[in-house]
Structure formats: structure tokens, C-alpha cells
């Protein structure tokens, strides 16, 4: 998982485009825009993260860095 990739997705894609990319990756199809990642799993992780952060920013009126902190908290708690 690469934070710069997630940041770029949040900055350049709409929520609708990200959801469409998620669906494409789950159906083993190419998304409409490039998603960086070593494999399909990492690409999907980047898209999941961008969707979470965009939703968080929208729902809480938060800035990117705060939404990213919430996201990384979720990740940390899952594997600690």
C-alpha cells in the first residue's frame, strides 16, 4: 500500500469514478483510469482507501490529512 498513490487518486478522481474502478477491478476488468499498484490486490486496496477517504472528507467535512489518519488507524488496528 502506497500513500502517495492513494493521495493522487483522491485528488484526481471523483467518488463515482472510484466506485466504478472498484467494480471494474472486482470483475477483473481494466478501470477507466490508471490505478498504480504491484498487482490487482494492491490496486484494489488503493481504490478502497481513496473511497474511504473521499467519503470521510464528505461526511465529516474533514481535510485529506485527517481522513488519511482515520484510514491508517483502521489499517493499524487490523494487524496489530
Amino acid at each position, binding site marked *: 500500500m502506497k500513500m502517495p498513490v492513494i493521495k493522487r487518486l483522491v485528488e484526481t478522481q471523483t467518488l463515482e469514478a472510484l466506485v466504478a474502478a472498484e467494480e471494474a*477491478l*472486482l470483475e477483473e476488468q481494466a478501470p477507466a483510469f490508471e490505478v498504480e*499498484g504491484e*498487482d*490487482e*490486490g*494492491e*490496486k*484494489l*486496496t*488503493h*481504490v*478502497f*482507501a481513496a473511497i*474511504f477517504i473521499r467519503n470521510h472528507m464528505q461526511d465529516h467535512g474533514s481535510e485529506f490529512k485527517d481522513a488519511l489518519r482515520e*484510514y491508517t488507524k*483502521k*489499517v493499524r*488496528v*487490523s*494487524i496489530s
Partner: protein
Amino acid sequence: MPVTKATDADFQNLLEANDKVVVKYYADWCGNCRLFSPKFKRMAEAMQEQGIKFLDVNAETSPEARKLASVTNLPFFAVFRNGELLDTVAASKEEAVAALISRLN
């Protein structure tokens, strides 16, 4: 045999009720976990005659079950025999998970 969703509330009971258990730990943020789901389901169906219980555990929301297997990465797999942790692997390859499950036999 279908894959059973387990949580901290029923994980220990499921371990005690089944001699052979394989657990897939996942999280909603994990792309490889999501992509592995159909493979895990297929493996459960293919091995239904072997008496192995297949469990899915959300690592984010089930800390007790997660700590029991010392989850370090996701997706993460653990096999239990007679309620005791036998072995684990963090992997996205079906072959690695199949090799882990073979430890139960």
C-alpha cells in the same frame, strides 16, 4: 461446506466444536482479501468431505480472534486442530493456503 463468518463472540466456540479449522482473516480495506474470497469459497467446497471448518474473520472488528493467531498482515490464514493454533501464513496465493491446510491432515 460453506465458509462461516465468525466474530469474537463465537470464535472460541467454533474452534472447540470443530477438530480441524482454517481461518481467513480479512479487512474491508484489503484488496487482496476481497480478491481471495471466491478462491476460499471454492477451497471450502472442494474440501467439504475432509471435515475441515472454514471461517472468515474480520480482523478489524474481532481483536480477540486476531490476537489468537498473531495476525501481522492481510489476508492472513491460520489452521487450528482441536482448538490449538497449528500454523499460520500471510499470503495471497492459493498454493500457500492449500499447503497450510494440508498441515491439518
